[in-house]
């Protein structure tokens, strides 16, 4: 006799409707009154279909209830008790997965000395100051990196080249030659290339801004907010804050670079958690199109590591901004809070990740010397290399990395409803906290679950109140 139990899911309510987020498929369904009643009756129990239908037949009709059970079963919102999940074998991406994004560290040097920096700070992985990687990437290495990118991009029509550092503008010469060369190669190969660059904005000058705009280079500015926040950690080597230097340059950039959206990327620390105040300053006062926040990556004992109450406050403010974003979105108005937009996109696509991000998969970081690592955060680290620009991707090493880091090998994640989106979290964060990229980031599990729940509610609201908005995320 078939015994039924609830499938793995997270229920949520939005716009006065009930929804289920099914795990691990990441499908979102809206329930009708019959399916609501079936799931409520089943609860945590194990029942036969007849037992389940009996109590509900009077209200909805026996046939109707059985049909509903059939639908819930088909989408795995209910399943046979004790049944093996049928996706037992680890599902791996194709062995020759093409490269989508290459992050090129054009220099490991920086003119700022931000205390929390993962390149130079106390938790750094590579010895940027005294290691054997060159301080600046040479033009020759940059050219070879571009060739590597196109070679590894396979059948992909578009390649993304992101410049990272150190401070990228310290090596402006190589930026210029790389962009020109990448365009030339893209034209020859019949491909398209898109560029992005991260900078601390201190070295922006009119001719650089002009070059960025002309070349349609997306710019992300690392900035922590108003003067007090910015000057707390984002300081020059003599300890002087950088706010007064960067603000006029950012204003010029925003004014003269209209070809691509300019985003701000904020690092949150225990000392700097006024998310709403920062957001308001960066959008209203400075005029950024997008603002994204990320908590600092750090060992637990650093004084800037965010404590539990800090995470609560951060979540509360994220939620407030998310609901603000919702009201804007329902009215088809832009809102700059990019954290929620990115998650809504993933929810709408129904992304269910085996890996937390594209690192080592469709994204790699290239160090100044030409070593290919998992991502920009590991660039230059011998322990995390997966190839070289001249030798290409080391497919054996890549495969071993992916097998080792697959969600199937993170047992702590297997009962979490947020795993389709989180998949254990950032490798670099795990390496810094737990000394291993394979560890799940257990220190922010609760936070991630609460944030995922918030985003699901926001998503449900958008789906009910302005479904046309979501069409932009569909292929």
């Amino acid at each position, binding site marked *: 006799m078939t015994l039924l139990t609830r499938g793995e899911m997270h229920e949520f309510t939005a716009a006065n409707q009930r929804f289920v987020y099914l795990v691990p498929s990441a499908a979102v*369904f809206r329930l*009708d009154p019959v399916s609501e009643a079936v799931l409520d009756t089943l609860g945590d129990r194990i029942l036969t279909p007849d037992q389940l239908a009996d109590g509900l037949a009077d209200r909805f009709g026996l046939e109707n209830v059985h049909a509903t059970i059939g*639908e819930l079963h088909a*989408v795995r919102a209910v399943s046979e008790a004790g049944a093996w999940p049928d996706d*037992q074998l680890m599902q791996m991406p194709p062995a020759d997965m093409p490269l989508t994004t290459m992050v090129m560290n054009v220099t490991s040097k920086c003119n700022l000395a931000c205390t929390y920096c993962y390149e130079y700070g106390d938790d750094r992985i590579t010895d940027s100051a005294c290691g054997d990687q060159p301080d600046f990437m040479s033009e020759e290495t940059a050219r070879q990196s571009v060739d590597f990118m196109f070679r590894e991009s396979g059948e992909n029509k578009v390649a993304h080249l992101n410049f990272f550092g150190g401070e990228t503008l310290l090596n402006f010469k190589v930026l210029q030659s790389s962009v020109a060369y990448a365009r030339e190669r893209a034209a020859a190969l019949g491909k398209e290339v898109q560029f992005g660059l991260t900078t601390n904005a201190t070295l922006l000058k009119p001719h650089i801004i002009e070059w960025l705009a002309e070349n349609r280079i997306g710019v992300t500015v690392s900035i922590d907010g108003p003067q007090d926040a910015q000057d707390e950690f984002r300081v020059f080597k003599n300890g002087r804050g950088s706010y007064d230097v960067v603000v006029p340059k950012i204003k010029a950039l925003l004014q003269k670079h209209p070809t691509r959206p300019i985003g701000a990327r904020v690092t949150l620390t225990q000392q700097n958690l006024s998310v709403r105040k920062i957001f308001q300053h960066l959008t209203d006062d400075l005029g950024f199109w997008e603002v994204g926040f990320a908590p600092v990556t750090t060992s637990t004992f650093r004084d800037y590591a965010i404590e539990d109450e800090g995470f609560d406050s951060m979540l509360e403010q994220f939620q407030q901004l998310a609901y603000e974003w919702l009201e804007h979105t329902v009215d088809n108005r832009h809102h700059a809070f990019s954290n929620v937009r990115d998650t809504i996109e993933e929810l709408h696509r*129904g992304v269910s990740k085996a890996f937390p991000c594209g690192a080592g998969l469709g994204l790699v970081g290239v160090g100044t010397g030409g070593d290919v690592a998992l991502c920009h955060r590991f660039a230059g680290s011998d322990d995390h290399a997966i190839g070289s620009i001249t030798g290409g991707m080391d497919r054996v090493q890549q495969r071993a990395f992916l097998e080792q880091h697959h969600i199937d090998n993170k047992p702590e994640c297997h009962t979490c409803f947020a795993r389709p989106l989180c998949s254990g979290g950032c490798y670099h964060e795990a390496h810094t906290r737990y000394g291993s990229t394979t560890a799940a980031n257990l220190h922010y599990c609760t936070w991630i679950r609460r944030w995922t729940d918030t985003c699901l509610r926001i998503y449900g609201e958008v789906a009910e109140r302005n479904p046309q908005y979501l069409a932009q995320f569909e292929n």
Partner: protein
Amino acid sequence: MKHLRPINQKASKIEATVSRPDHDVRAMQGGSPGPHIPLGCSFVFSPGWEVDSTGGTAGLCQPVERDLFDCYITCFWPAHVPDHYNYAPDWTAKCAAAQQDWRNIDLIFP
């Protein structure tokens, strides 16, 4: 589906899959392109122990006689092979290579 409304793209794909009229269980010889993954003992990746992708036996990856060993060593098939743990540990002692020596396998009467 009448009672569940797909909201995101994944849900729509699932709905399309489960609503397809031919979504019944597909046998090995379904004729669909793609890798041949045998049913049954597929856990142990011993390919093609029943029939090949055309429904015949000509394309099997190993002689059918060897299935016997695959079934009794790696698979739970107590009704068809002797209990080699308790009662008949030596029943295949004369059969070093199944494809040549299968006739030498002893009959076991419980």
